[in-house]
């Protein structure tokens, strides 16, 4: 009984305290979302199917379109870096990139080194199996990953609703 009341008090007090101080929850330990808002979204892409195509000009593809939309929603410009998955993941680790895309799935082996978004869409591979698409973000930048996930989910919902 005591435990119940104590736990409730702790939760209520912390919530009020945090909300009252105007602290954002979740927050980024390294302030990624704040840096991107009104600034530059540093995107790493690696070519993969229709999701990311790279050529002479700026990259294109469905994930590229999504990220351009996300940057626009944050009033940010996009700065593209093309590379292999490993070099892009290192870019996330070293704080030189904010997000990595390239038809990555939730089976990606990079989860020790980078944060993974919630799957935002499903795709069917050539062999008929279904994969869940994700993007990679810096570890522990929870305000940023939440903003990205929310944007991707809303976008997917809009597309689903369109004829």
């Amino acid at each position, binding site marked *: *009984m005591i*435990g119940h009341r104590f736990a409730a008090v702790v939760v209520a007090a912390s919530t009020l305290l945090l909300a009252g101080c105007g602290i954002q929850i*979740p927050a980024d330990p390294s302030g990624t979302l704040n840096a991107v808002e009104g600034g530059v979204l540093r995107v790493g892409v690696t070519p993969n199917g229709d999701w990311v195509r790279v050529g002479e000009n700026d990259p294109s593809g469905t994930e590229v379109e999504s990220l351009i939309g996300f940057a626009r929603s944050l009033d940010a410009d996009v700065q593209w870096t093309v590379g292999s998955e490993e070099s892009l993941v290192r870019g996330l680790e070293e704080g030189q990139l904010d997000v990595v895309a390239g038809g990555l799935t939730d089976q990606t082996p990079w989860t020790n080194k980078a944060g993974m978004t919630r799957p935002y869409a499903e795709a069917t591979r050539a062999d008929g199996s279904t994969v869940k698409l994700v993007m990679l973000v810096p570890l*522990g930048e*929870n305000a940023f*990953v939440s903003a990205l996930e929310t944007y991707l989910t809303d976008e997917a919902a809009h597309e689903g609703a369109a004829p």
Partner: protein
Amino acid sequence: MTATIGFGHTALPERQARAVRRAVRLEWITIGALVGIVGLVFLVLGNSQAMKAAWIEDLLSFIPPLAFLIAVRLARRPPTARHPYGHHRSVAVGHLVAAVALTAMGAFLIVDSGIGLVTADHPTIGTVNLFGVTIWLGWLMVAVMAVTAVPPVILGHMKLGLARELHDKVLYADADMNKADWMTSVGTIVGVLGIGVGLWWMDAAAALFIAVSILHDGVSNVRAAVVDLVDGRATTFDDTQPHPLAGRVDQYLAGLPWVAEAGSRVRDEGHVFHVEAFVVPRKKRLSLKEVERAREECIALDWKLQDVVIVPVSALPGVLEASGRQ
């Protein structure tokens, strides 16, 4: 349901039999509650180390109730030629197994969480989409932890009284752990909220706190179980003081007219005690009838005194504190 419940060859008094039935029911309820809690916590586990530690603690909480249910079942078996002392020690074995599991898991979690703290793992916790609404997963973790904090505490308090009644140390260890379970929940909530405000290390620190509490439970229970298994002096169910029954047996025997001095060794077999009582008779000749009556009277002192052996000697063995009459 109303069949006589016994421990070994003693049928329990009605009061204790009812306590056993209640304890068994409470342990089944505990297991049911744990299934729900483990499932619920698993759904929102995410990347939080504190959540992982809390979840593992919940999984470990299955061991004591299971050990209790198995031990109670085994202890009912009457003594046989192969097991002349009955099966009461199964309680101690269950106790030891549960304690070792706790210790090992606590140690593992301390290392695991410590590594996370040293290598500065920033836990990534994103959002979930619940019925079309996107919310931060951390809020769900906090909610689940707040809800799952309650039932174990209530169950723990209910089991504590029964553990005293039944002199059952596994049940006591279980009740004690349940009672302290809310600290795990509050610790986890603090860790998750820490992640929420951008203090990544609070998660690993909370996990470390939980791991230390698991290890502490484990070590103190290993100690208690080992003391019982190596036939340490019988103590009360919470191991805080020597059990008063040994003194009562000595007092009763020393009060008999044919006894000069009495002292006994008491083994805690689990729920019940086995007593070797040494008596120094006043005269050289003993009446068999008197010895047998003394034995029966001793057993009748308390339901926990299951087996009493009376050994007439010319002087008490050195380790015994004699409670003799002048």
